């Protein structure tokens, strides 16, 4: 029985971790190129969930089956967030690219607040949580197998791995990827080498936002949609990115999975029932430990600081 519980929690942990990984990828790519912590990324995740919600509701009302609804919702969310990510970079971050990092950080916070508050307006979504269409939920969240895995859990795992694989292929095998690595390594030199840094940076934002959208839709089906859903998930995904090594793609995946599992196992297995609330602190404790012991993360490379 205990072994069964452990196995179940491991599966949930992987599932949660896969979602963290999807969001963490966006953080890591942006930080890698711009050295900016994009605080608004968690809210892009939220926008994905909301767009997916509206699309899914519409498709279901027109009589769509669960899988079709999901596909359409995912594609719509990805498209919407890609555009959103591009706009944020183009209009809020690009004009400030040469300013001190603090200014960019504050702007990121401003964009985050803007998204959260705009989506709390009744005209846009409202402050009350809503659920994806019941038909979708019943179909996707039906458990199968002895461990109670759901179709959605399987899907998140597969999608995360596939998308991470895809971006890794891009990074390692395409010219865009090469350019991206160059920009991450040395921004100024890359510009001098004739790389269109603006295009590369836009690419990172667009791709990262699309991934966040996927995570948003999947999570919203599991739980609910509400304008503040991105705050905690965004923050923890960021910690996952730091854990794995900010700037490293595989680091984001590793960090996400690791964080997801540690959190779930703490909450479900290792912490006694009345202390399970402390599992939330796990992410932050891990963050501080990593920053103190190996700030560049598990898979990151140490860079010497020149005086």
């Amino acid at each position, binding site marked *: 029985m205990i072994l069964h519980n452990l196995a179940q929690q491991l599966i949930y942990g992987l599932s949660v971790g896969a979602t963290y990984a999807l969001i963490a990828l966006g953080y890591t790519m942006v930080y890698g190129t711009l050295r900016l912590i994009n605080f608004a990324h968690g809210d892009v995740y939220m926008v994905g969930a909301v767009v997916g919600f509206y699309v899914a509701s519409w498709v279901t009302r027109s009589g769509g089956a669960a899988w079709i609804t999901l596909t359409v919702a995912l594609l719509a969310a990805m498209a919407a967030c890609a555009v959103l990510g591009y706009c944020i970079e183009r209009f*809020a971050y690009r004009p400030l690219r040469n300013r001190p990092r603090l200014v960019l950080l*504050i*702007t990121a*916070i401003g964009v985050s607040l*803007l998204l959260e*508050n705009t989506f709390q307006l009744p005209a846009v979504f409202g402050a009350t949580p809503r659920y994806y269409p019941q038909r979708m939920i019943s179909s996707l969240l039906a458990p199968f197998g002895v461990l109670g895995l759901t179709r959605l859990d399987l899907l998140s795992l597969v999608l995360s791995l596939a998308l991470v694989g895809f971006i890794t292929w891009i990074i390692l095998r395409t010219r865009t990827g090469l350019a991206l690595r160059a920009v991450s390594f040395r921004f100024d030199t890359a510009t001098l080498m004739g790389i269109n840094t603006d295009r590369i940076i836009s690419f990172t934002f667009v791709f990262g936002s699309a991934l966040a959208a996927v995570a948003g839709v999947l999570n919203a089906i599991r739980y609910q949609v509400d304008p503040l859903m991105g705050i905690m998930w965004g923050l923890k995904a*960021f910690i996952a990115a730091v854990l794995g090594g900010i700037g490293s793609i595989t680091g984001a995946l590793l960090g996400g999975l690791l964080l997801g599992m540690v959190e779930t196992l703490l909450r479900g297995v290792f912490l006694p029932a009345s202390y399970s609330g402390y599992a939330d602190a796990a992410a932050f404790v891990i963050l501080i430990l990593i920053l103190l012991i190996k700030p560049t993360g598990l898979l990151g490379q140490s860079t010497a600081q020149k005086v």
Partner: protein
Amino acid sequence: MTELSDRPSSRVLPAWAANFVIVLVIGTLWPVARLTASQLNPYVVQVILLIGINIVMATSLNLINGITGQFSLGHAGFAAVGAYVTGVLVNYLAAHDQLAGHEWLAMIVFLPLGGIIAAAMGLVVGIPTLRLTGDYLAIATLGFGEIIRIVITNTNRIGPLEVRGSQGLRVPVISNLFWTYLWVIICVVCVWRLVHSIKGKAFLAVREDEIAAAAMGVNTTFYKVLAFVIGAFFAGVGGGLQATGFFLIDPKGFGFMQSFLYVVMVVLGGSGSVTGVILAAIVLTWLPEQLRSLKSLHVEDLRMVTFSLLLIVMMLVRPEGLLGRRELWWTRRRLAAPSPAGNP
């Protein structure tokens, strides 16, 4: 580096006059506060109270972020510590029917006690993060702030003291304009004096170029930790003022969102300018309240949207904040001109 050596003397008044003014202000504070509270709508009095608290929070954060250049994103955590220490102790007194007549005890003893424990937290945060800079320091402090918040959320009782954690703690309202602004004055005077002293030069040196400062013999470790400790102390006091002024405290109100708000106040006022930050605290507290009264068609949520837009525009247009690094009465001319030998 011009600002360091040519920073105009902040001696607006000779020392004895300054002290006299401070005593005078405190002396008249009690009747002024009573008068204001009785003449104004209690709702407005609450806003003025909140302004005072935000001044304390922003000024204390300014010491860490603006003056010493340590980007801390966990300030609300220190406030939480102070708030809960004060609130829990006040409730304990109230539960044993000892509170009536002894409110001054809470405001004079419990508040600084909360501050001291918060300062201890500042030590806990400041020391491990010594090696970190910039973004890493920011997220580390954010992490600490969250850990503090989560610990409080999960704490129900400490011995005989009821904490109630995530349920929220209701504390009898014993603060008023007098107590709040008394502490505002103490905080501002302390930070001001500190900044314009020899120690202040050390803080500024750490901000400008830490490695150069260390090379010049400044004990950067000591000053960085000192900034955190003093900043945390006053944040704890600010938190205590919140607990005793607003009837209900909830760990959710001390999360990184709140820390962000304080950071915005510091940046808006111009990191490093004591008066600028005070101004920013006033504006950023008062403005949302005024926007709230523009209640046409239930568009209160628009005030937060407006607020965020304002923030972004501010960063695009004037990122150095309202006053940059000057104090309220310095002019650009004074900053630019080199000072004669024998700096006053």
